């Protein structure tokens, strides 16, 4: 795949600032302090493959639900505090910790999210979600919606302002004039060097890392792929240097700054590559001096449950439940009001089951989860649940709200009020924050 002309459209965004109306020195694009304008972090958990929203947030009073789901319908959902749930929805039984969090008033359930002319392709619909271009023009090579946010705020100044945790970079973070770091684990981008190299660490002696970064010339020609690689190498080494200062497991970590007890305790429980592992790492980053504005967790499971859903989906939801709990347990109480966690997925699933699973769907429910303080999420239900009787021609749900309202809500958490430069239009945030 060619990389396209990176900066043609980006130039128009490059100098705009859409943080607070009167940006202080600390929040301008080239300011030295690139911590989030409000000291807040937005953590996004991508449920790749298309999470089955109807079996996540279960309708209680609609008989059609069990007609459509004769074998996969959730028969014993967890009932929620009726003051917050309206006695209309329950949660899947694999989400007990989330249910308790909902009842404590810290979970917003946002229903009916989608876009016109729904694309039932994973890759088509992800292109739309990643780029925030609803139903038209979402495609490869362009900027992601969070990349567009970074283009207008941090640029290339702070490679840790946005951190992806997962097997590869998320297109949502792809900027035209910015850079996001992607890591897969907590070792701080530490390579395994061959023994014959006789270098004890990447930083030892005349630093191999430094030599590697010298491949980046002072003037990079970004119009060529070679130039883009040169720049990526330099930014990778910079990200690595910064990570070494903040991650306790990084090889050159500053050992005077121990991991918090919360992170240690949770990491001991979740060592494998799971959503909990990634979210504990997210929690470590949130409380570090890196103070990322955005952490984007992807690659946490295969939610594409065309078959075997009765076993696969509950397991995935349980991992999500564990992960959200581990994330907040790993954070000191004082920081619970600094973070909000939000789910995304390329689509929901077909209301009618196919015998052992569900095929690709459209509108979906998402979660915005706050910590246990009073400053985060105002729990409850937002948006409108889609009708199970008025389905579209393919038998799918008709959305009631544009998915970019979810993004507008996340951006509001980051201090962005005018979303049009990022989302193509000004979308109304759901009033989920205190």
């Amino acid at each position, binding site marked *: *795949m*060619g*990389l396209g002309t990176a900066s043609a459209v980006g130039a128009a965004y490059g100098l705009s600032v859409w943080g607070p109306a009167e940006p202080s020195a600390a929040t301008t694009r080239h300011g030295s302090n690139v911590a989030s304008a409000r000291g807040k972090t937005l953590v996004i958990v991508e449920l*790749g*493959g298309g999470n089955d929203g109807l079996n996540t947030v279960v309708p209680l009073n609609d008989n059609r639900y069990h007609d459509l789901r004769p074998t996969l319908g959730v028969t014993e959902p967890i009932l929620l505090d009726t003051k917050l749930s309206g006695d209309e929805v329950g949660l899947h039984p694999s989400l007990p910790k989330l249910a308790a969090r909902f009842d404590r008033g810290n979970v917003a359930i946002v229903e009916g999210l989608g876009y016109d002319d729904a694309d*039932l*392709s*994973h*890759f*088509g619909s992800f292109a739309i979600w990643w780029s925030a271009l609803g139903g038209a023009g979402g495609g*490869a090579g362009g900027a992601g919606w969070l990349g567009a946010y970074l283009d207008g705020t941090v640029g290339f100044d702070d490679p840790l302002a946005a951190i992806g945790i997962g*097997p*590869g*970079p998320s*297109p949502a973070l*792809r900027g035209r004039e910015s850079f996001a*770091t*992607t*890591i897969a684990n907590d070792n701080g*981008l*530490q*390579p*395994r*060097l*061959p023994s*014959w*190299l*006789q*270098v004890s660490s990447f930083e030892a002696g005349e630093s*191999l890392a430094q*030599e*590697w970064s*010298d*491949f*980046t*010339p002072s003037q990079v020609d970004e119009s*060529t*792929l*070679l130039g*883009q*690689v*040169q720049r*990526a*190498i330099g*930014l*990778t080494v910079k*990200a*690595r240097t910064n990570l070494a200062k903040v991650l306790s497991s990084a090889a050159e970590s500053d050992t005077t700054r121990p991991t918090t007890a919360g992170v240690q305790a949770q990491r001991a429980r979740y060592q494998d590559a799971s959503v909990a592992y990634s979210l504990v790492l997210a929690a470590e980053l949130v409380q570090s001096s890196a103070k990322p504005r955005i952490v984007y967790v992807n*690659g946490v499971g*295969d939610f*594409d449950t*065309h078959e075997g859903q009765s076993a696969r989906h509950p397991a995935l939801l349980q991992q999500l439940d564990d992960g959200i709990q581990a994330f907040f347990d790993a954070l000191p109480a004082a920081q619970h009001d600094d973070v909000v966690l939000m789910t995304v997925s390329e689509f929901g699933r077909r209301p009618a089951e*196919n*015998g*052992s*699973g569900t*095929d*690709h769907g459209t509108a979906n429910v998402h979660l915005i989860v706050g910590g246990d303080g009073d400053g985060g999420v105002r729990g409850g239900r937002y948006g409108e649940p889609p009708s199970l009787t008025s389905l579209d*021609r*393919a038998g799918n749900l008709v959305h009631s709200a544009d998915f970019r309202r979810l993004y507008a809500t996340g951006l509001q958490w980051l201090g962005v009020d005018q979303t049009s430069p990022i989302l193509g239009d000004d979308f109304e945030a759901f009033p989920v924050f205190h």
Partner: protein
Amino acid sequence: MSVSTRERISHVVRRLSMGAHPDLVAALESPDAAIARALDLSAAAPVLPSMVPPSSYDEQQPIDIVPTIAWWLGQMQTSPRLIEERLVWFWHDHFATSLAKVRVPYLLHQQHATVRALATGSFADLLHAMAKDPAMLGYLDGVTNQVENVNENFGRECLELFTMGIGGGYTQDDVVAASRACSGWVVNVPGRRFSARLTELGAGPWGSIFIPFRHDDGEKELLGQRGAFDLDGALDVILEHPSTARYVAGKLYRELVGLEADDQTAKRLGDDFARDWSIMGLVESTVAEPAFTSNAAVRSKVRTPVEKLVGIAHAGALPGEGSTAAVDLRVVAGRSRAGDQVVGVGEALRTIGFIPFVPPNVSGFPEGTLLLGPHQLVHTFDLLQVLPTAPAVGPGGVEDVDALMARFGVFDITKSTRRVLERERDPGRQFTLAAMSPEFAVT
């Protein structure tokens, strides 16, 4: 950007193989000679060693795929049939099937044999074979696709990714029609219920078979044609649609040329391709396009971790020593197992997330900027573990930069790269930095 003749020759070999061995590049005098050499299939085809079929679904562990991966990497490193290796990789990526879901290495091993046998043959044959391939039937849920309970997974991905392409002119109704047509195929899993019956019906262990009563034999309307299509019938309808040939031709163009084919070119190449579905015919037409050897095509792709691995293995030897003098990937990659752990080469590929037979999803392996994340870039260092000992150094000690980069098939070197490599006086580190250079990161 000016491109030297040597770089252009290397470009041709890189794109038409899985790695440009420096001795081979050195022996070629022109890009045209390189094309002729790369497309030469006169040498005998390598024979994939057989794998013992497991006696049950649970007998094998995923790690049992390692010998197959090692053998395959060895072919990338040594096979004289250069274009075959490129095409085998291309079709594996195109008909992406993951061990993570299929779970039984034997099925992926057998699929590899099928891909290899058909990679340079007819696309129509390959498509029909892949649709009935047991690993594919497991991966995209063909085995649960039956009348009354139609599973759309294969039908959708077949139209979107394997044939017409997104925006190729099919609708959701076509997805349903194709899925209905493909219903009724199952795999004979030894030890499972019905295995004996399926054997009686003619399916060998781990073979696929059509079971009429599971098939939706009703009339369908697919891409404007009506009929009681079955799997083969539906694929023929899909092959007749002009989008299919154009989409596949456009994708192969991107693979070989590294640039996007304009609509006219994709149409021209595709319509020609649709006459006989000859994959080698399409390859020949594509490399005959002036764009293939144009300056814009050179270094327009990000080199994949697997290509880097082959390149590092090649570069480990001194000129004239032969392609396996430093390391034989068949041996080294096969040894990358200690107990239940994958180590060395396997661990490096796992860390980067680029393991043959384990594409991250049905659209295949990451490419372009999705390979340039800090995690993948920094762990490219890990690939150097493929060399068991420090790379050979010429009599002069630290290599001349041009000679060193030539071992990696790189001939045009930027000033910044030259400066870094000239300054380094330790041969092992110099070699390592060459492997980590921006020039080697692209292809």
